[in-house]
């Protein structure tokens, strides 16, 4: 039998062929505009036309550090990590129930339930949180009505608390879906084997299920992190006075037509995130995790 799937060279051409569509998309739609944007980030703002003039300079990048842009990057990243963490924390038990502890019908219903709210506008869902958490909102009315507090609780809204709640509620399904995909595929024989070897539920979960489910968990965390990083809705609607995010900051800068700076910020964000993911890949061996999950 000479048809070994991993023969050297045997799969190189099919692999290239298979990769072609995505490469075309990524380069054509993704990279080309980015190259333009990056080049423009090294050009100067033209005070005469309020546009860009092809004079090479690092002014935008130094402005990035001088004008308080980095704290926003840091804060947004931190919020996104927090949101992704909390979402993953809730998503894993939910996905375990859906993928491993439910009959098919119930599993489908639950998954559909998790997805439904996403068909409504995220903007007005975030807006609705203002009415739930506000001073005259449902939660406060309940708290005051039940005499748990005397005055409405102010920090429920227009605070980091509200932002995180808004973001987790909005993006949780992103974490659940990949986890369910993986957890639903873990073969029962594996778990029975673990039981036969004397492992209890929690041990099985920790030492057998979790490692097998890792790709789904990582994917879920990554999805929520990425989407939370790029959002502005929840922060603008639920955050304190003038709270900012990367997206809000880029918009602010574009409003004063400082396009080179806006592009510099974007390029920095991309580089920063790429570095993080590359590091995570090295340390956690991410891409290897998605390779054959042979058992």
């Amino acid at each position, binding site marked *: 039998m000479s048809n070994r799937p991993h023969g050297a060279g045997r799969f190189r051409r099919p692999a290239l062929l298979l990769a072609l569509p995505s490469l075309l998309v990524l380069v054509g739609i993704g990279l080309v505009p980015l190259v333009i944007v990056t080049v423009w980030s090294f050009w100067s703002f033209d005070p005469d036309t309020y546009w860009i003039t092809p004079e090479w300079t690092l002014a935008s990048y130094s402005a990035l550090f001088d004008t*308080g842009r980095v704290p*926003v990057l840091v804060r947004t990243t931190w919020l996104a990590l927090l949101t992704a963490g909390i979402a993953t924390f809730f998503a894993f038990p939910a996905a375990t129930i859906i993928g491993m502890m439910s009959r098919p019908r119930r599993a489908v219903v639950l998954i559909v339930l998790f997805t439904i709210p996403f068909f409504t506008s995220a903007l007005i869902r975030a807006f609705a949180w203002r009415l739930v958490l506000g001073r*005259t909102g449902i939660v406060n009315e309940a708290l005051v009505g039940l005499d748990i507090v005397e005055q409405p609780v102010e920090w429920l809204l*227009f605070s980091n608390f509200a932002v995180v709640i808004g973001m987790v509620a909005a993006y949780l399904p992103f974490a659940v879906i990949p986890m369910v995909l993986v957890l639903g595929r873990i073969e029962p024989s594996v778990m029975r084997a673990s039981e036969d070897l004397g492992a209890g539920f929690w041990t099985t979960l920790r030492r057998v299920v979790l490692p097998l489910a890792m790709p789904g968990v990582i994917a879920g965390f990554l999805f929520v992190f990425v989407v939370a990083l790029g959002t502005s809705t929840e922060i603008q609607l639920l955050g304190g*006075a003038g709270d900012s995010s990367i997206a809000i900051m880029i918009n602010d800068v574009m409003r004063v037509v400082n396009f080179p700076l806006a592009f510099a910020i974007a390029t920095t964000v991309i580089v920063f995130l790429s570095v993080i993911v590359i590091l995570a890949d090295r340390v956690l061996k991410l891409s290897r995790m998605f390779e054959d999950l042979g058992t």
Partner: protein
Amino acid sequence: MKKWTDLNVSSGVALALTRRQLMQRAALGAGALAIGGLGFPRSSFAANEINFWASATLDIEDGWDIFKNESGIDVIFTDNGNDPGPVVAKLAAGNANDIYDVGGLQGGSEKELAKQGLIAPWDLSKIPNYETIWQWARDIPYITYEGKTYGIPAVINADSMIALEDKVGTVDSYAVIFDPKLKGKTAMEDAWINSAIFTAMYLKESENAPIAEPGNLTPDELGIVMEFLIKHKKDGQFRTFWNGWEQGVQLVANEEVWVMTGWEPIVYAARERGIDAYYAAPKEGYEGWGNNTILLKGAVDRGLSDTAHALANALLAGFYGCTLGQLRGYVVPTDNNVAYAEANPDAFDAKAVKELADHVKAKFAGKVYWQNTRPDNFQLYEEWWQKLRNA
């Protein structure tokens, strides 16, 4: 059906029909609204289509159908988000000139758009109604560039504060926004364009800060103003900053804040919802602003220049102004509105229209500082605002 004739704003203006009522008016049919040539080019051409890309403040929604019947211009209105940043970006680097014909935007960007050749000057000889625009509106400095007119005032107003009567009484100064007794109960707009001016006005008039023009601050003056704001933000003075109509209305209608700087129609919206709000007349004065129509170069290239001019003219003919006034409480700065209402008494209440116009004129007769999206140091403004955000 609510009629707001018993609304009592500072000068007793009756306003704000609901959308439902506007739809009913449309059902009345154009026949009931036949006018006698109030500046409308009597349609010798078939209904011409034109794409109007503007802030939704300029939208009369179902009223465009009647507008089409009267003027012969079929307006396809698209909301541009009202944020000068993305709008200018889409014009400069994007495809806005390929798909839209006439723009409507907060004033201030006309100069740079003209310099980049993205908009074309209006030929005022094709807009007879231009002469009917109130003089001081025509005199707004940034709508002209190198002697040509690039922006035609579509809507103007003078802003101050919305206040809740039963919570803060009658306020007459912006000091309430910064009053420590109202900590966590005030708000301002999340835009240096407005909030810096209001603060500068207050500091200049009531705290005698060395500020020459609140609408155009020097770097030193800007520092004073922004440090003041940063200090108050750190003290927790502001419940939040608001961004956009629904957010502003929600803050007031749900009594999340008791006083905030903002747009006048928010008061009407709050009252519709049963809140006892009013618009303050502060001694430091008002902040004037305008949304202007601009002629996109793409329209000229596509041969739509004449239709565009016809549109600009028709917006000033009266129907649009009356409708916008009733729908949103905003004023198109021309006396044609009153004339139109008087000629069409079953469509519009001429008295209400006149009261609204007089109300705005009265505000502008007093102390008004003009808003400008491009003060001399506009990029410095944004840097300071970033510092405020980080504080």
